[in-house]
């Protein structure tokens, strides 16, 4: 028996491992730039569509008009779709056995999820940048100070973080990318539209208005609008969260994470170790 060189296997930390996996995911985007369509062309198209096609018939009381009103809504929707990005990526990796291969390596099993989360959050952030630029072109401006402006973006990213857990949960539960697409479209579209994202809620039928104003997405949208000075005076009878959107948004982020994260981890474990 001949002896061969066996290299030293160093123990690395979770962060190093996650970063290696996140870098691999970024490389995917570089190889397939069309993966970025969901945070570039698509939201820009939505911005233009709503700003110019529907916008002219939606009457808002924002001083800067509908286009300023719209931006926070579209951003909230795009960030909510971070869950979509995570779920699709995770399901594909599970399906192709990539996750199993990584789990057979001497790494922390959580690195697969953390790496995926990092890259997905970065992916969604690209969307925020693209939309901010689009917004600036069509006349959207932030009218408050730097601190509030930053807090607005921070809330959006915090929301993206909570949505990542939803994505891990759905991604671990679904057997194919097609199933993920089906489930996510069927849920995320109504959730992000049945809110104050694209139109003011005060003229909705009572029941719908109640749902829309209690919708967590509406809290986020309203919070960001307030922080950026894009909000309109609250209509009479607005639900409680609309009066306190910032604490509500933070509360929702914590609540969703606290409830969904354990579910997501359990589903991921039973999917992979079963």
């Amino acid at each position, binding site marked *: *028996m*001949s*002896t*061969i*060189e*066996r*290299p*030293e*296997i*160093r*123990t*690395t930390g979770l962060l*190093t*491992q996650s970063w*290696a*996996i996140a870098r*691999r995911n970024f*490389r*995917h985007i570089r*190889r*397939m730039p069309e993966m970025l369509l969901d945070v570039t062309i698509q939201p820009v198209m939505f911005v233009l569509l709503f700003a110019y096609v529907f916008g002219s018939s939606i009457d808002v009381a924002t001083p800067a008009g509908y286009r300023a009103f719209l931006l926070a809504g579209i951003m909230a929707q795009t960030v909510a779709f971070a869950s979509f990005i995570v779920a699709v990526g995770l399901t594909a990796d599970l399906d*192709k*056995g*990539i996750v*199993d*291969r*990584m*789990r*057979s*390596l*001497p*790494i922390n099993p959580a*690195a697969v999820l953390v790496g995926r989360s990092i890259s997905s959050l970065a992916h969604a952030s690209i969307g925020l940048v693209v939309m901010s630029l689009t917004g600036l072109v069509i006349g959207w401006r932030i009218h408050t100070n730097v601190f509030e402006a930053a807090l607005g973006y921070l809330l959006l990213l915090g929301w993206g973080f909570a949505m990542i857990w939803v994505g891990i949960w759905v991604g671990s539960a679904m057997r194919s990318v097609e199933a993920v697409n089906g489930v996510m479209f069927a849920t995320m579209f109504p959730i992000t539209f049945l809110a104050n994202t694209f139109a003011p809620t005060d003229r909705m039928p009572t029941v719908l208005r109640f749902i829309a104003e209690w919708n967590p997405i509406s809290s986020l949208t309203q919070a960001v609008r307030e922080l950026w000075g894009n909000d309109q005076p609250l209509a009479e009878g607005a639900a409680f969260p609309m009066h306190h959107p910032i604490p509500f948004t933070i509360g929702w982020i914590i609540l969703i994470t606290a409830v969904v994260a354990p579910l997501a981890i359990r589903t991921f474990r039973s999917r*992979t*170790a*079963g």
Partner: protein
Amino acid sequence: MTRPAIEAEGLVKHFGDTVAVDGVSFVVPEGTVLGLLGPNGAGKTTTVRMMTTLTRPTSGTARVAGHDILDDPAAVRRSMGLTGQAATVDELLTGRENLRLIGQLYGLDAGYITRASAELLERFSLAEAGDRIAKTYSGGMRRRLDLAVSLIATPPVLFLDEPTTGLDPRSRVELWEVLRELVKDGTTLLLTTQYLEEADQLADNIVVIDRGTVIAEGTPLQLKDRSGAAALVVTVSHADDLAAAEALMRPHVREVHLDAGARQLTAPAEGLGHMTRVAGIFDESGIVLDDIGLKRPSLDDVFLHLTGHRAEDGAEDDQTAGQPAGEVTR
């Protein structure tokens, strides 16, 4: 040399009510190849998944390179490489990037990764394709890359789950060659296969599992011997000669079986001398033969003998590893 590299001790895995693996034990000495042979759904993949710490056994345990899979899974993962059933390479990364990613996750030194990647790509005939994304690779190339990736940290123990499934015959033979070289270098190999020929070609020892239990084990030769004696097979050149050939042969053999379609006469073999004698008789008779020879039972015959069914018709997918209730009766 004979220190066990892999030991399985009464591995059991239940999925709900389904018993996928039902007490599998075996030992693989260091530097040898074990073929885990069985039809689809026999529990091969589940057994490998338990031994590679991907799934927890319901009971029983295993040791890989001396490390217990339950007590020290991290040490097990440091000592072994796994090539799964599907070629799990990242299609959007190049061959070299695939190697680098896994090398980084192993915590290997960057300089070492670069060197080892180049060597592995060379060794697996992927040097030219190394900077192309894996999506453009053929099935055989993907398998080779998959194997190369498993070897980046030069693990002493390698698990290969159906390494050649879906490969064309040429790629299969090429992969066998590579595997033989690895073993020559001292790597211990456990490979699952449903190709009996593959086990025959590569394995020092074979463990046959069916429906979650070990039904036979031994060297390929021992297993073949277990399923009966060899046969003397005579093939005549002209079908017209068959009857004459049979009459000629009958006094010299215990019994003879005639297969008109194959122009073959089959009789129980009684050793080499006996075969030479029969060949001499034909030589004198003027009946022209295409072939005369001894045929040992193939592993296919062994499998049929052991399990009562052919290797190909098992339950469905080994991934689910369970058998439908109706299949359990023999």
